[in-house]
């Protein structure tokens, strides 16, 4: 059974008097443990698709199923625990809580679910990504690469079943970008998590199990890497 399924989803934005069709009848299925790359040009709708699949955004039409459960019309407060335990997020702009230290940022999702071992788990992850020395630093005291490593740790602390990554290397230089990507892939393999990654970086796409290409809100191609 697919861990993640999208059936005929459509999304329209209204900007001023203009209605923009971002996604048109998109259907997609992601298998458990799969590394799926969604690629496409800027404005093709790939980030919107990721937001919808992760329950961060609503849709006009269609259904989204997580492990067979329809999350399309779930209210925010029912989606919240799902995002907390089943999903992990890594963003291009990191989105670390500025008032929390690196350690606190990582602990936060675990604490939310009441995990008494939040601190220990966060420290293990920090050691794993080589950031333990910066545990007490605030986001503005970290470099871009460090911030993203911290964000990856936060995404993994609750051992989610799916990680959604939106251009995780987009704000990093090539060296840091490679390091972060390798870390993400290592952890994906280690923990057998499903990874849905949005990028327009062909090099990253080359490492995916499958590549879905979006063009003007429609899935143009879906190619499995052999």
């Amino acid at each position, binding site marked *: 059974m697919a861990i993640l399924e999208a059936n005929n989803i459509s999304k329209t934005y209204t900007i001023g008097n203009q209605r923009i069709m971002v996604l048109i009848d998109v259907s997609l299925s992601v298998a458990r443990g799969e590394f799926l790359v969604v690629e496409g040009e800027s404005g093709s709708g790939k980030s919107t698709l990721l*937001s919808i699949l992760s329950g961060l955004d609503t849709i006009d039409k269609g259904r989204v199923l997580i492990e067979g459960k329809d999350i399309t019309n779930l209210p925010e407060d029912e989606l919240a625990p799902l995002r907390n335990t089943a999903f992990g997020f890594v963003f291009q702009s990191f989105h670390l809580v500025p008032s929390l230290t690196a350690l606190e940022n990582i602990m936060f999702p675990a604490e939310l679910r009441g995990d008494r071992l939040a601190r220990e788990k966060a420290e293990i992850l920090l050691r794993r990504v080589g950031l333990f020395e910066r545990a007490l630093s605030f986001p503005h005291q970290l470099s871009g690469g460090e911030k993203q490593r911290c964000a990856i740790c936060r995404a993994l602390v609750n051992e989610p079943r799916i990680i959604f990554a939106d251009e995780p290397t987009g704000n990093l230089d090539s060296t840091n970008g490679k390091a972060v990507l390798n870390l993400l892939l290592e952890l994906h393999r280690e923990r057998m998590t499903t990874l849905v990654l949005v990028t327009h970086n062909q090099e990253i796409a080359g490492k995916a199990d499958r590549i879905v290409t979006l063009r003007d809100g429609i899935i143009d191609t879906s190619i499995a890497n052999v």
Partner: protein
Amino acid sequence: MFNIHLIRRQIAGSLHQSVMLVLCIILSMITLVSLGGFRRSVHASFLRDARALHAADIIIHSHVPFSGGLLNALNALEQQKSIEKAYIYEFYSVVQTDRNTRSNSFRSEKKDVPMRPRRQLHQETAEVWSMQTDHRPDTFENQQSLLSDIKVVDLGYPFYGDLELASGSPFNKVLTRGSIVVEQSLLDRLQLKLGDSLRVGSARLTIRDVVLQEPDRPVNFFALGPRVFIASADLPSLDLIGKGSRVDYTILIKVLETAELERIAGQLQAASDKERERVETYRTADSGVKRFFNNFLFFLNLIGIFTLLLAGIGIQSSLSAFLKEQEKTIAIMKAVGSRNRFIIIHYFLVVAVLGLVGTLFGLTASFFIEKIFPDLFRGLIPSNVELTISMGAVTEGCIISSFVVTLFTLLPLYRLKEVKPRSIFGKEDHHPARSPATWFTGSAITIFFIMMVLWRIRDLKSGSYFVIGVGLLILISFLCSEGILRLTSRLQSKNLILRQSLKGLFRPGNATSPIIVTLTASLTFIFTITLVEKNLDVTFVQSYPPDAPNLYFIDIQPDQKDAFARILDIPATYYPIIRGIITAVNNDPIDRDAERQKRGDNLAREFNITYRDGLLSDERIVAGKTLFHDDWSDMQVSVLDTVVKMRDMKIGDTITFRIQGIPIKARISSIRTRTRASLQPYFYFVFPERVLKNAPQTVFTAVRVDKKQIALLQNRIVARFPNVSVIDVTETVKVFARVMERLTLIVRFFTLFSVAAGILILISSVFATRHTRIQEAVYFTILGARSRFVLSVFAVENFLIGLESGLIAIALSEVGSWIICRHALDVPYNPFVGISLVMIIIPIGLVIAVGLGASLSIVRQRPAAFLREQTEE
């Protein structure tokens, strides 16, 4: 080129912040215009109707019959047809109904007896001032009696202003020999009607009409009894005034040639006995009502200036929030070549537009608030005062408001210089330091407010106290706030919500400390007033000491004392009273005009002096070992500590009195204090018995009587001794409580504007950190937090702000009201823990509600929309 459309769009784009800025300007306008309008209305009516308010051109007051010199001068002027004059005699006396009674059996023990002047009666009744009482009439057999405010007037009174009667008839036609005109409340209380007769002293007089309004008594708020007008032709038949009588003597003079006013006033002044007789023109004359309003407006002005200061902080805070939202636009404007000057002027225009809107709404709101004033000040405002907002008040409000807006927007606008074009890339993270501009604007604001205080209060000493007091209040609030916040920042909680809330307090751009300081300062004001009022209430009203006297008997003649004691039949202490004035302290003559200008008690008034050789049960000596010193050969006097507060005096200093016309110079032998809450009679000056024993005097006593027996006793005493005034102090105290309650209500009403300013600062702070709060809320949501969690974090954060403000405010208020109660009022202090807790809970609830209200839109933000905006940026 300035683009009005851009200004409009920018205002629309930052609508929340714009509204906050406008609200702060509205608040400052309301404070300035409504208070200014009220002040001007009251002053205008006193100025416009000054002649009517005194019913004459020249007014001469005395507590004793007028001197020969003055009367000669008056007669001469009258013969020259330069003036007309009318004598007025005012005093309190107990009147009795005459229904079904034996008119011939009504007799006085002594006819040629002195009476209490009205003003002095107020001072003697435990310095309690009071409004008209509503206590029930007292019955004795078929008679009823009531303490009344008697005014005996000559034909011709009033020379100016209208004395309005219910019948509409001219006053002089109605008030003829044998007739009286009374206040409606007298008829109601004694259940009388027009045509009935009333006994006043030894005379039986017929009630002819009801007085609706007196020109020279604009409010009857402070009267102990209803008014009774008696024609001077009936004065001898009252048998209440004779040699040594103590009455408020007044001569009203109409100057027939207006241009001669000052010359004639000067001539009369020269002929008068300056220590006893006060000659004033209607332009210079003071009145109780005028003094009350001067004092009250003084206090309201202080609150107004305080509110204005807070509104200014609100303006600065909301403009900073507005400009924070505009930072990207400003960076872009700079990136495309706009100079700082252009940008500052552009945003100054934005402020000007918002200022204009705020001014218009503020003016409208002021007009509405002015409509509440008549209800708020009911009974306190003279009926001739028209509460209107004059053009002068509007102009003054607009000018001062513009000044305030300019002063408080100066710094945020100047700081636009610090926005760098690189902010476009979101790289800007400037934390403005305390630059010279900060110090400059801070100093300008301080100077402006000091000038405001001096201008409005016109009293350097009180103004300085106020400035220092507010400065200290803000400084202490700031230090407490900073200290507690510093401690809070070190707190490590295991509770995630609490931890996040604590972090939130230190969110960049969060004006946590200014909010706490503002709320603390305004709450301290309200809490202190409430605690002092409660303490006074519990001391004097709720728990009127069970052993304290409740019935005062004034003006007993020494030769009536034994008969009086027999009728009273209650063991009592009889205090001799001799009236006298102070002419000098340490040979320095008393400046009577300067003394009368003082807000509190003063040395220019007439005092009740007594003699005895021991302390009273509620007295103790605070300076000097004994009441009097056997080894001193000089004349000695013991003074109450209250006197020392009026002027700095110490043991050995000399006070020169004039007692019954005889100068007496005495050295201060001791300074006494007393337990004010005891409600025992007290005297400022006590002489040794041998000095004053033979001076002309009256006797005063106070006893505790069962409430049910008061009426009977009062009637019994008045029937035998009509000259004796009987005052039921418990009723007076109840009236005092009602007056306190009313004044507190008014003060609270105006202080609420200060709280509103604090709340506006809180809301603008929420908006100033809106972006960061949304960011937090979205991140929490993405990471799996429910909206309840996010709301809880914001609620607890606001709870902490409210709690800290409330706790500091209550601590400061407890200290402040303790000082006021113990040292200024000398009453026992009760911290009112329960009420204090409620007072803390209310602002906490308010802060949580306001904070959450402003945060709801933040929580409702969809995470994806925010993330998209972030990515687009």
